[in-house]
């Protein structure tokens, strides 16, 4: 295999895994209008949760349950759902922006836990040397990556299919009503807060799933993989692809991740060493500009919501 296809496989694993996260976020924002400003927090919970559950027993750590990967990832998702429940119960009956503020807060707080609760999270070093799922069955890492890409695609497909079914169900049709006209939805006798809570918890557990898969793929967790920037990146993916459309969420993940990695590559090749940090700042700034520009000029993204509404 050529170097490029090896890289392409690696790229697609990461991008499509972000796609899973994008699907969770799309359920929250695109379909229901919930703004989650702490995406990275739920991603980190999924990742750390899985890492702690799957990790080998080490006497200097609290975790190390040595559980099989599927259980560990589900456990990470459950923890993400629990965190979503705590934030959701506090905010979803209130003004919409309170959810945004609280999710931002929980992401920041979880980052502190990841950094400081060393006996659980390994602190700044993170948790390393996790057994990668089924790694021993493959001869080299390229074929393993190919297998993992297949795994991510299958899981992405299941999540996508499930979400498509869900949004077409009577429950799913309610979501748009909740987003567009709350009083109309309420007059149908529906408990808006409960629907919002369901959507928020489900979306966050999907974000947690993506975190768990990421850890399974790279085999370690460290706080540097969960910087606040990731929240902005995932939002850029969703808004570029087109919120309210699952295909848009996945497309956006691939497009924005491609732009991000290519611009990063270009900077490392072109920019002089002494200007690298400035170039990095420009790269991050572009993510912010992308979000703002899309919201103003093309709120429907590349492929936005199919049916009516403004």
């Amino acid at each position: 295999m050529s170097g490029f296809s090896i890289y392409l496989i690696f790229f697609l694993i990461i991008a499509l895994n972000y796609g899973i996260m994008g699907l969770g976020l799309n359920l929250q924002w695109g379909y229901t209008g919930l703004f989650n400003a702490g995406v990275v927090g739920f991603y980190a919970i999924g990742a750390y949760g899985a890492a702690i559950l799957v990790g080998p027993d080490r006497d200097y750590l609290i975790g190390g349950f040595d559980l099989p990967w599927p259980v560990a990832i589900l456990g990470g998702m459950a923890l993400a759902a629990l965190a979503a429940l705590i934030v959701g119960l506090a905010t979803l009956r209130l003004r919409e922006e309170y959810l945004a503020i609280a999710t931002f807060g929980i992401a920041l707080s979880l980052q502190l836990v990841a950094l400081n609760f060393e006996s659980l999270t390994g602190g700044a070093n993170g948790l390393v040397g996790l057994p990668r799922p089924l790694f021993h069955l493959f001869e080299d890492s390229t074929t393993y990556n190919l297998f993992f890409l297949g795994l991510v695609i299958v899981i992405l497909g299941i999540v996508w299919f499930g979400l498509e079914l869900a949004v077409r169900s009577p429950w799913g049709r309610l979501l748009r009503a909740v987003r567009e006209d709350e009083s109309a939805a309420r007059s149908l006798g529906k408990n808006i807060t409960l629907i919002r809570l369901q959507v928020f918890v489900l979306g966050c557990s999907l974000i947690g799933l993506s975190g768990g898969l990421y850890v399974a793929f790279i085999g370690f967790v460290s706080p540097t993989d969960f910087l606040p920037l990731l929240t902005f990146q995932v939002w850029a993916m969703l808004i570029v692809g087109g919120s309210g459309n699952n295909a848009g969420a996945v497309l956006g993940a691939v497009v924005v991740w491609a732009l991000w990695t290519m611009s990063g590559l270009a900077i490392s090749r072109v920019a002089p060493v002494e200007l690298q940090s400035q170039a990095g700042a420009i790269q991050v700034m572009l993510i912010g500009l992308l979000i703002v520009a899309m919201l103003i000029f093309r709120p429907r993204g590349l492929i936005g919501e199919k049916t009516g509404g403004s």
Partner: protein
Amino acid sequence: MLQAIADGFMSGAIIALGAIGLTLTMGILRFANFAHAELVTAGAYIALAVLWLTGAFMGPIGPFSFGIPMLLAMVVAMAGTSVLALTIDHLVFRRLRDRSGHMTLVFGSFGVSLVVRMIILLIFGGAATYYSNELQIAMRVVPGLRIMPDQLFVLGLTVVIVVALHFFLQRTRLGLSMRALAENPELTRVNGVDTNRVIRWTWIIGASLATIAGVFYGLTIQLRPEIGFHLILPLFAAAILGGTGNVIGAVIGGLIVGMAESLSVLFIPAGYKLAVPFLILLLVLYLKPTGLFSGSAGGAK
């Protein structure tokens, strides 16, 4: 303990100044502006730039670490940050205001916050700096309590500003219009008030107070591009604790948040200090979402 309380007052005053502007924009412009805290950083750095450009760091006055140029730089930075806020409003928020969901505004402000932070990082670099290298001698007030003269200055000026703002809102036509706009925008226009003008002044006041908070932060702690990012949560916690739209509430909320952060170090590891505003926020949202002093715009639906 005594020292922690004094420090809490200090950071509380800075949070309060930032939270006033935030609570005004939340009440009057009706959205949670994630970019407001970046105005604090912008104000602090514009003041630094003014000091650099004029190059005139004339000697400090009396016991303080700064002199007249610092105060002038602060005033220039207030104007500069106001221009920045008005520009952002013109380029981004005004365009999103008329759209359907107001959460789009919140989303937009989230993006804007990243852009502003990166521009500051790009211009000034990531390293921490100071306005002045003058060393200050802390005054020992009582055993176990040391206070810098700068800190006293900051506290004093904060009190003056809060009192002045209160009178402004209660007594002047513009203040009256702002309170009216927070309650009912349509009726305010029906009363013949040019709401665009009131919105402009809301930005100017919010940005100016954010600048003062930023300069105070730089004076008493240090200048870093992440000042704003780390203030987002304390400012929101203070504004919501005080009741959205309520200026005095935001001040008291700011003091409570600052005090809680400072005292928390006595009970939990210092690494978790930044999570304290989040815990306060959760507590308020669970127990009394309208805040301690329910604001004009009301927190609950």
